[in-house]
């Protein structure tokens, strides 16, 4: 029995070591706040701990974790709508000290991302930041691979257009010359 427990714990430790950066990063850009992100990460790995025996092996476990994180975050949002007014009051202002100011390039990226719809943004970042293949994205989103591929294609095109409209030329990028984007009007994505 003890041997089984040890193996279980070893597997969990290995899972956490391998994939916690991915899930922390994913929840970081998907959650409404860092505390939500932290909650979500903990929730995801608690679910993994409880369902460890059902978890697929290898990279499929990473996809499972992403899909679980997505559901956890969706639940968070649903459960917190009642507090929307509170959030607006208290979270409207982000402390300048608490938010790392982005560089000009990153500000441009964020501005372009904010021009995308949430679905486009999600699928694009799952691909570009989380390095998931269309089939894996489909699994996370719960859709067909062909659907995910189509969404990704459209999201990439829209991002490219948005970025180009913001940064027509290297030296003309509004974000390079306009402090507006650096002063906090950017949003977390």
């Amino acid at each position, binding site marked *: 029995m003890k041997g089984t*427990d040890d193996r279980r*714990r070893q597997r*969990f*430790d290995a899972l*956490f*070591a391998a994939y*916690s*950066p991915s*899930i*922390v*990063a994913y929840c*970081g*850009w998907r*959650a*409404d*706040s*860092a*505390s*939500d992100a*932290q*909650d979500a*990460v903990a*929730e995801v*790995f*608690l679910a993994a*701990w*409880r*369902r460890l025996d059902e978890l697929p092996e290898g990279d499929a476990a990473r996809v499972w974790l992403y899909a679980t994180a997505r559901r956890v975050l969706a639940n*968070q949002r649903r*459960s917190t709508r009642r*507090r929307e007014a*509170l959030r*607006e*009051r208290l979270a*409207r*202002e*982000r*402390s*300048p*000290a*608490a*938010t*790392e100011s*982005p560089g000009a*390039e*990153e500000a*441009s*990226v*964020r501005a*372009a*991302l904010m021009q995308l719809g949430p679905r486009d943004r999600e699928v694009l970042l799952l691909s*570009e*930041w989380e390095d998931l293949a269309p089939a894996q994205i489909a699994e996370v989103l719960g859709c067909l691979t062909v659907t995910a591929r189509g969404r990704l294609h459209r999201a990439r095109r829209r*991002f*490219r257009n948005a*970025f*180009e409209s913001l*940064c027509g030329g*290297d030296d003309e990028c509004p974000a390079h010359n306009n402090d507006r984007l650096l002063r906090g009007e950017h949003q*977390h994505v």
Partner: protein
Amino acid sequence: MSDGFDALRRANPRARTGFAESIEVAAEAVRARIAAAPPGATSRRRRVPRRRLVGISMACASAAAGAAVIVALGSLGGGTSIGSAHAALASAAGVTASSAERSGTATVRITRDGEAWGSTTVRWGQGDVAIRREDRPEQAGALMLLVDGTVYGVEHRGEWLDLGHPGNIDPDSGTTPAEYLAAVREDVGGATLRRLTGAMRNLSRSERNDGSVVYSGTVSAGLIARERGFKAGQHTRVLPFGYVAHGEAADPDSQLRTTVTTGTDRVVREIAVRWGTWRYTVTYDELGTTPAPVAPENAKSLEDLRRQQLRGER
């Protein structure tokens, strides 16, 4: 800048400073959650985590460093190192955080060589916050309220001023109300409490005659005093509720002696941290029952006063 995709990849949050720390925080949270989970629990459904009153810096969770950050959960798996003390403490933190979510009062005291260094009382409820600097009650700004998104402060004559939106006040001039409120927003919720209790090492437990329980251990200073800004060419680290960390507390690698006291109801009553001759305590009261702060009557609008002043000067 190519077509933006190179820039997009470079903007990956993993590339930002602080990502490693956010994974450590996650590891602590996971450890606490698992320790608090009932032994052998394998239920597929569990309570959705209650939302905290406030959020901690997005920068922390989305901040980033190297891709292959390995955080050994270590004691997570160790049968003897995750004892009932860890589980009880995590449970107390959870219960307290849930109670604190709605409302509460926290009294923060910091002493050096036994002498009072600072003291603040924070009351919160229904999303509004009242902050009173007990150590300088006569000073302008010693009492600050955030009610319905408006900041009120007491000026030196004791009159209330409507200072407007927190973001409008004193930008670029040291710690602004917005910055301070942001810190308090983090600390009145469960995030700070969970972070500290989840990070305790060398944990021991003792029960007092009155039924309260004291958990003693050490916590990394970096998890107690988080980095909050950059001042005079140096990063500043700030203790929960806004006091700048000095001495060992400013060194993130220092291990600070920490005690957490829970009442007979197993709700956290006090967190105390000691280093050198410093002692820092946060005492929680009236969790869930503190009345919400109310906007002061007859508060003068700062904006109106400014306009009047301008007209007078002309």
